[in-house]
């Protein structure tokens, strides 16, 4: 039996550590922990709700727009205001562009090196240049012209994700960390030439998705790594809050649907009141199983049985019993009906390409709607006063999965409570009170490992969830004590 600790685990956003127990060439146990601590939920208290989109987007430099959207949905909800049509469409466009940038970044620049030896692709056996070298060896199945093809796509995808950011910047000023998402809509007033430029860039990205992204992933898994259709299954339950509103008003009118897959069928209802946070394995004291709107953050690094700074979000499918759910592009595509209900590393990676095309098509339609249905001079936002002593909920999808912001205002219209549940909290969650592991931990069990010292297969499983740890660990510690290290005996 071997215990392998991979730390730093690279090509994730943030600091991630995984501890694996490997027995007879298979992972038999797994623990995931985040190693980065910030403090958004604490330092946003007392601030103006108007600043919430600008502050909370800085939780994540890869998916800032998703946080800005969740925050603005929460403050719009608190004020009981719907955005204008153009405001809604511009939010969709900025966020859609961010999905495309992030999917390309994930697939080609973060995950692909688990399959492709980039050093061989770039310069042959003598090439030894960072950041591509050194890499874990073993199980590299692709050579020759197919290897060149992936290396070319790696570079082309750099351009495409840059261009996706350009689309966002045409409406948000800059990316990452754009400026324009405000209560009631969006501050931008694009010119006709901006619409034309966004359409051309989006069309070019769509061509890349159809001509390279979809066939690349098809080749990678159907030809070279078909075994990954049965590796990394995880909890097998999928959850989506839905995103990209297609109209004002009804939250069910979204490009990407809200709902759950409970392991046997898709249910088009997801009631956020059935979400609870289990703190059994988290370094926290206080009440267990609270709804996020009432969430507490009382850290205790000496707590017995604790091994992670992540709380464990769980969803009560039947309103009573807690279940472990996976969130992300596969969950969204299954719930929306664009992908068959099958769960694995390969399905997770391929579902991103399906979603990318759906969003690129959505963006082209939103540009048309803005220009031809409402007109570009139609109001971009509706101004409103921030109300006092109320609450708001913002549910949307970040690239990595379901993202929720819950906000409460005091009598002075300042933020008095803020709770964020990020997608990586769902996916990288630790064991709950019933001893049930989080979905990534479950997915790792049974994964075959050729070389226990270089478990590249485990990286494939973990990366398929595209974890983002700056985002997941957004609690602050109020002491300076050493973190308890979880050592497998």
């Amino acid at each position, binding site marked *: 039996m071997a215990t392998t600790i991979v730390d730093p685990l690279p090509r994730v956003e943030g600091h991630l550590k995984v501890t694996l127990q490997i027995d007879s060439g298979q992972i038999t146990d797994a623990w995931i922990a985040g190693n980065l601590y910030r403090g958004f939920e604490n330092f946003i208290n007392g601030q103006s709700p108007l600043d919430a989109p600008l502050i909370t987007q800085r939780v994540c430099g890869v998916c800032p727009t998703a946080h800005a959207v969740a925050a603005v949905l929460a403050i719009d909800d608190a004020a009981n205001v719907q955005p204008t049509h153009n405001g809604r469409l511009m939010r969709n466009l900025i966020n859609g562009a961010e999905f495309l940038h992030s999917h390309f970044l994930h697939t080609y620049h973060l995950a692909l090196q688990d399959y492709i030896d980039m050093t061989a692709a770039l310069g042959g056996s003598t090439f030894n240049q960072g950041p591509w070298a050194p890499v874990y060896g073993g199980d590299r199945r692709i050579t020759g012209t197919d290897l060149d093809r992936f290396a070319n796509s790696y570079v082309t995808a750099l351009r495409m994700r840059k261009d996706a950011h350009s689309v966002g910047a045409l409406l948000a*000023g800059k990316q990452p960390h754009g400026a324009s998402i405000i209560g009631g809509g969006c501050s931008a007033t694009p010119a006709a030439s901006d619409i034309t430029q966004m359409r051309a860039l989006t069309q070019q990205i769509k061509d890349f998705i159809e001509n390279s992204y979809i066939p690349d992933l098809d080749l990678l898994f159907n030809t070279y790594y078909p075994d990954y259709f049965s590796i990394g299954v995880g909890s097998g339950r999928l959850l989506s809050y839905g995103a990209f509103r297609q109209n004002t008003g009804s939250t069910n009118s979204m490009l990407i649907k809200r709902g759950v897959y409970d392991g046997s069928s898709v249910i088009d209802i997801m009631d956020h009141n059935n979400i609870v946070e289990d703190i059994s394995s988290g370094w926290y004291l206080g009440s267990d199983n609270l709804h996020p709107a009432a969430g507490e953050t009382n850290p205790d690094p000496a707590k017995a049985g604790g091994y992670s700074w992540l709380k464990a979000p769980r969803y009560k499918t039947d309103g009573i019993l807690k279940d472990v759910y996976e969130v992300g592009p596969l969950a969204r595509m299954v719930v929306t009906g664009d992908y068959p209900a099958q769960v694995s590393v390969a399905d997770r990676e391929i579902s991103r390409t399906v979603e990318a095309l759906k969003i690129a098509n959505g963006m082209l339609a939103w540009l048309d709607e803005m220009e031809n249905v409402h007109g570009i001079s139609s109001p971009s936002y509706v101004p409103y006063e921030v109300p006092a002593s109320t609450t708001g909920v913002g549910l949307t999808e970040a690239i990595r999965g379901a993202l929720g912001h819950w906000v409460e205002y005091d009598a002075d219209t300042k933020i008095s409570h803020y709770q964020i549940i990020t997608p990586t909290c769902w996916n990288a969650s630790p064991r709950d009170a019933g001893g049930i592991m989080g979905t990534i931990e479950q997915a790792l069990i049974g994964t075959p490992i050729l070389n226990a010292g270089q478990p590249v297969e485990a990286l494939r499983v973990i990366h398929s969830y595209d974890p983002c740890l700056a985002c997941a660990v957004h609690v602050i510690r109020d002491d300076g004590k050493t973190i308890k290290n979880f050592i497998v005996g």
Partner: protein
Amino acid sequence: MNITRRDFLRMAAYAAAAAGVSQFDLFRLQKALADNGKPNVIWFEGLGDSGCVVSLANYFDGTVGIEDVLLNHIELKFNSVLMGAAGQAAIDAAEAVYANYLDTPYVLVLTGAISNLDGYCIVGEDATHGNGVMQLIEAFNKWEERAAYVLYVGACACYGGVNSMGGNSVSNETQTIIPTHNNPPNFGRNTNYDYSKSLYIPGCPSHPDWIVLSIVDILTNAALPTRDSFGRPLSLLGTPIFANTVHSQCPRKPEHDAGNFADHVGDPVKCLRKVGCRGKDTFADCPTRGWNGVGGYCNKPGINHLCIGCTQAFFSDVPFNREIDNIDTTP
């Protein structure tokens, strides 16, 4: 994909051309680059969101992009977002750079803030190191000592950024003292570190051009560029960077001077100072340089939001949306 020395010089020349340097400067640059090898780069991420790495990945000068910087300008030996290496192999690569610093000088880059709280931010586990856990602050202290240059990239690394927002009381006081390059407050620089080799490249995120041009400028001159009192480069390769206020380059400035102020964010024409724009207090070339290849910036007409001062040390002094009165419109 074979890259030759000639390609290397061509790409360096593009970077310089994008910055607007003369033919003579270009010749000087090519010579400097031909004479020097690529520096190793160790890039640590502290308390931050990787936004600056994502921003750097947007680097594009019209012909070549970030892959050419990575292939030809620098040898990026450690970066947790982009590197292929994992676990001990990654730590070992960084250790080798540290050991060979006399033969191959290295540049240390920090994005994200440093926390001096034990356990707050861990770079990785190192079997050769103490209790096995390498804290960011320990790693930074170690690699900083032997680094030829240290680049603090982004608001968090430079001045704390949003991480230093905690504990701030909300204040609606207007900024009465406009900071200049000559009267900066103490910007919280950690005096344990060697300022003589440090360059501060702020922004939230930092602009990819600012990062790449800083590296090329240092390689060209084998010295730091002239810095203001916040440690920022006033100009790079002859082009002003943090030399002028956003306001001085803003197309809305005539509206400001005429006393035409917007009363809500989202106004496409009027000056946004009254609702909190910090362009008058902020040094950066955003309106001139533009972002993401489409000339964007936060307070651009058509985007209509506030400059929130992300290149200044006061960035974390929220609120962003604030009422500012008694505006001096004297040109």
